[in-house]
């Protein structure tokens, strides 16, 4: 059925409208295998963004819209930083862009900013690529007068990023890896921290839902308010579709407009994990086609069908 439709429909490319924000990439770095840092020009986002917010990016007019948490801004230069993992077709396409090239569509800043106040001691956990946006938050918590204890985590030591930056920003830095190849193994050592000192707030960011869940279960017995940034599937990112809905404290919330940060002790994790898997098959299909059939698989697919 699908093929039939594809064969008949001529894809029309939409005429580019005159735009102001160019989204030109000014800095691009590889922080670890498949983990890329990009800084692009977008004065609108750069003048407005606060820690915890995200942008929605679309690569090309056939691309999907996907959210990336903002990893920092430079309002003077009008530059926005994002750090991402090349996992699927869209993120690979983004990672393939070089300095000077433009990202198609970027909308933002979206979502609510992190609640940043002088809490006392704040423990910031950044897992994997989310160490990037966490560095932005750590700086903000520090500026608000908090003592900041930072934990950065990754699957193994090769995938740890922004160690030096985080070390400079935080009062204390702990490192954790899933396999124990650097720092502590897993997150169990956090218990010692909570036993040892009074932590007033915990902030967790990671694309791995299981890790955030573990973090919340660890902090629960100590009664420390734990705020986590949820990475639900999104489409428009502006509260229009509801695909990102999560259950928090028994109430349905939209991650894009009510979040993305919620009280982790109230999140229905099973539901979130289940909803994140809805399109895993299609994501694999898309990524595999892109990888094996080549960069222009889509247009070739179309050519063959004509």
């Amino acid at each position, binding site marked *: *059925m*699908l093929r*039939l*439709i*594809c064969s*008949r*429909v001529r*894809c*029309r490319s939409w*005429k580019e*409208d*005159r*735009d*102001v*924000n160019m989204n030109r990439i000014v800095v691009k770095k590889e922080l670890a295998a498949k983990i890329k840092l990009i800084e692009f020009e977008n004065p*609108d*986002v750069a003048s*407005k963004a606060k820690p915890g*917010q995200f942008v929605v990016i679309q*690569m090309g*007019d*056939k*691309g*999907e*819209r996907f959210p990336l948490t903002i990893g920092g801004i430079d309002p003077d230069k009008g530059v926005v930083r994002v750090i991402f993992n090349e996992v699927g*077709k*869209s993120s690979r396409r983004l990672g393939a862009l070089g300095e000077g090239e433009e990202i198609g*569509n*970027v*909308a*933002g*800043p*979206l979502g609510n900013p992190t609640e940043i106040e002088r809490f006392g001691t704040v423990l910031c956990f950044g897992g994997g690529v989310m160490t990037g946006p966490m560095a932005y938050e750590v700086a903000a918590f520090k500026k608000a007068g908090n003592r900041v204890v930072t934990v950065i985590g990754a699957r193994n030591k090769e995938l740890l990023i922004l160690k030096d930056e985080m070390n400079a920003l935080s009062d204390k830095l702990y490192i954790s890896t899933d396999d124990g190849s650097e720092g502590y193994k897993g997150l169990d050592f956090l218990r010692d921290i909570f036993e040892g000192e009074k932590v007033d707030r915990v902030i967790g960011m990671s694309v791995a839902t299981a890790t955030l869940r573990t973090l919340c279960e660890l902090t629960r017995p100590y009664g420390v308010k734990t705020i986590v940034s949820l990475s639900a599937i999104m*489409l*428009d990112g*502006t*509260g*229009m*579709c*509801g695909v990102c*809905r*999560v*259950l928090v404290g028994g109430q*349905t919330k939209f991650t894009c*407009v009510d979040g993305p940060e919620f009280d982790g002790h109230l999140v229905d994790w099973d*539901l979130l994990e*289940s*909803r994140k*898997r*809805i*399109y895993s098959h*299609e*994501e694999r*299909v*898309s990524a595999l*086609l892109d990888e094996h059939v080549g960069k222009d*698989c*889509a247009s070739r*697919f*179309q050519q063959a069908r004509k």
Partner: protein
Amino acid sequence: MSEKLKLDSIPMNKQAPEIRRRNPYEVAQGYTYEQAVEEAKRCIQCKKPACIPGCPVDIDIPSFVKGLAEGDLPRAAKIIYGTNTLPAICGRVCPQETQCQENCALGKKGDPVSIGRLERFVADWARENPEESGVFKVELPKATGKKVAIIGSGPAGLTCASDLAKAGHKVVIYEALHLAGGVAVYGIPEFRLPKKIVQAEIDYLVNVLGVELKRNQVVGRSATLDELLADGYHSIFLGIGAGAPMFLKIPGENSNMVYSANEFLVRLNLMKAYLFPVFDTPVKVGKRVAVVGAGNVAMDAARWAVRMGADEVYIVYRRTEAEMPARTEERENAKEEGVIFKLLTLPVRVIPNAHGSVEAIECVQMELGEPDESGRRRPIAKPGSEFCMEIDTLVSALGTQPNPLVPRQTPDLKTTNRGTVIADEKGKTTKERVWAGGDIVTGAATVISAMGAGRCAARDIDEYLGR
């Protein structure tokens, strides 16, 4: 009256149901020139036309129909474009049967003149023959030096933008998504309104009227209304629509494969998920699909489900067909395409399977009681009538509510308890220099009423700016 009245309207060519069930192309193919002229000749040119008061944008209907009947297409086009900026869209999606055609004199004894189809014919002709029609050549007046920001590029915003640009003001449209058009691109399906038509209308606005279009601008997040006003805009028109979905509020509705109609339609219309993997955004449609609700959006979702290969598609509605808000035409189209109407049925629970996907819905049978405040008979659940429907996809098409993003950021913009922005009949809101119109004021309604509101507001804004 010397000639005999022709009581039957000329039918419009449509794709046959068994063919259109499997393609995304427009169902209604439109009139040929001969058909259009013949239909136009049916108009008896009433001295006091009853059709014009039915039109929210006051098109001089008898005159354009006369022009068409005499074969003078440029004149017909000029009359329509004089008051309607988006005729190709209106001719397709307006509920003419409750507007211009409702009080047509011919309608008393037979079929009313098919005004919508004629409008569509003229608009399509004008678009395909821009030189000959001459409607796209506009002499813009001298620039007034006044700047207006239009928030939202849906029907209300586009109409307001076009009127203000024609009055010589500098107009900038802010659109949150990556494509302009609002509900016409994300809500209404290709098979009802081809997207190239919407794009043509927007190109006209940008290329001919000189309107500036800023996409990917989520006003309320990227800039607030106060910032825009401080930034050199003399006034603002808010046409941000009713974009937030409503859910059933029943247990289990966060299960996988339970969509809001908005999500389902955004995936298919805006992101072109029916072309996955050529387009990156997928949509999952099962074999047995239930769409809850009975408005035009519900019909659109059900008909997309048919096109995406579902075996059985149900419209689940708690009242009867007589109370359905969807247009008769859309209802008929849906039925022809095999959509099954499950009437007097209300889902009370979504039952997920072990993987968290919907497996069935538990429903109760309803019966109609006394009329409620909307004048429709209130549905009442029959005790003990619970039953299960086995389905694998559920679409909730219960309507939409205003997106609170802008009102939340603008405390001096007063809203009702339903979240709609309060505005007077000219569209003026409680906030100085800010007007609003369309679904954000009325709650979910039609394309044409939004356009009417956009026009009213443009007139008032123009007057304000001229002061």
